[in-house]
């Protein structure tokens, strides 16, 4: 069957099998290996991507289901050479060690900040409760999200000052 979807703002059309999972479509068909493939059972969350702006576990979504919809992956976070504040936060605060869970974590945390720009630690923990990190003990991930939250707020304030001046 043929499927057409938008991935990171680019429309793609491919011939696929009905049973192809979205994670494998992204990695193997499109070569977007930033999305990781982990437990296969929607437990670990490393395969999280956005489907129409909502985080989903792409090991448990058929590629065909994404037909006609918008998908965003970790490759679509940065704006050119400029890292998204979430990515910069993970870099600054040691939000990763081995990096396996990182793409899924960042997609979930970006979606969290879009809805809730100033989350509490408990809200961050709840947001990533469906994702597993075996290196950081989660504390540095939470710190990374706080970093992004604070820096985004500061950047927005500065922009407002410039606008007023």
């Amino acid at each position, binding site marked *: 069957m043929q499927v057409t979807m938008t991935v990171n703002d680019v429309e793609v059309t491919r011939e696929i099998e009905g049973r192809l999972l979205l994670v494998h479509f992204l990695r193997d068909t499109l070569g977007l290996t930033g999305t990781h493939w982990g437990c296969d*059972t929607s437990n670990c969350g490393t395969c999280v991507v956005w489907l129409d702006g909502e*985080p989903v576990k792409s090991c448990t979504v*058929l590629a065909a289901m994404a037909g006609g919809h918008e998908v965003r992956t970790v490759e679509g976070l940065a704006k050119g050479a400029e890292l998204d504040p979430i990515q910069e936060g993970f870099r600054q605060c040691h939000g990763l060690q081995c990096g396996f869970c990182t793409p899924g974590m960042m997609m979930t945390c970006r979606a969290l900040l879009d809805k809730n720009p100033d989350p509490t630690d408990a809200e961050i923990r709840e947001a990533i409760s*469906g994702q597993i990190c075996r290196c950081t003990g989660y504390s540095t991930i939470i710190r990374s999200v706080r970093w992004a939250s604070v820096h985004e707020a500061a950047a927005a304030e500065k922009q407002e000052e410039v606008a007023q001046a």
Partner: protein
Amino acid sequence: MQVPAPFEYERATTVDHAIGLLERLGSSARLVAGGHSLLPMMKLRLANFEYLIDINPLHEELGYIKTSSDEVRIGALTRHRELLESDALAAAFPIFRDAERVIADPIVRNRGTLGGSLCQADPSEDLSAVCTTLDASCVIRGPGGAERVVSMEDFHVGPYETAVGDDEMLTEIRIPLRPGGGSAYEKVERRAGDWAVVSAGAAVWLAADGTIDDARVGLAAAGPNTTGIPEISAALTGHAPAEELYEQAGAIAARSCDPATDQRGSAEYKRHLANELTRRTLRRAVERARS
């Protein structure tokens, strides 16, 4: 790599289109909504279908929560996240928000649906226990637009088995709204997002004089289904809410459930939980009914 066996993917455009496809394809076809139960089962070859009919495009038609004076109607494709975030639903039946907070995880809740949860008919599934507790009924649509309404008791035929026929589809859940009501849900799980070791839901309706007009308790993961416990309703009705009454109800719950020893706990521990969680949820349901 776990992938399902080959199947043909079909996409439904309306409810009647989906039913038309089911009529034509029979038992070789299955509807898929959130897919977070069906796809893992297909990966493990516990389920195999020649056709999957994707009903996610029907979300606009079947994703809703409508409240009237005597009933709440919820479309079968309403997602867990929508049930969790609905203030109207939390006001009418706080049990939904209690349960949704501990069903799977936030990412899975973005996909999973009420109808899919009920149709999976897993004895450990929390929304089945919630709907049983609230005495919900299920609207099943078949060929030619024919609709029938069945109680939760009749809907769940057995583990993983429902009253929905091969050419039918669950479209709506209806929950009666009665005055003086309060409800609550409690789940014990080994880790965030896991299936319940045991869950309990309770709903009470208080009369004007403060006595219990009606009460219902539903358990999950404590037997082959999530049906209610009529003996508890009988024991509580007509009495003033009191700690001794909750103890009595807890004892009935422990006695009437039928849990199995597995990796989540011993049958004995699960009976203990059925007792304790029944008491806690009844206590909270009464507090909420009074406030």
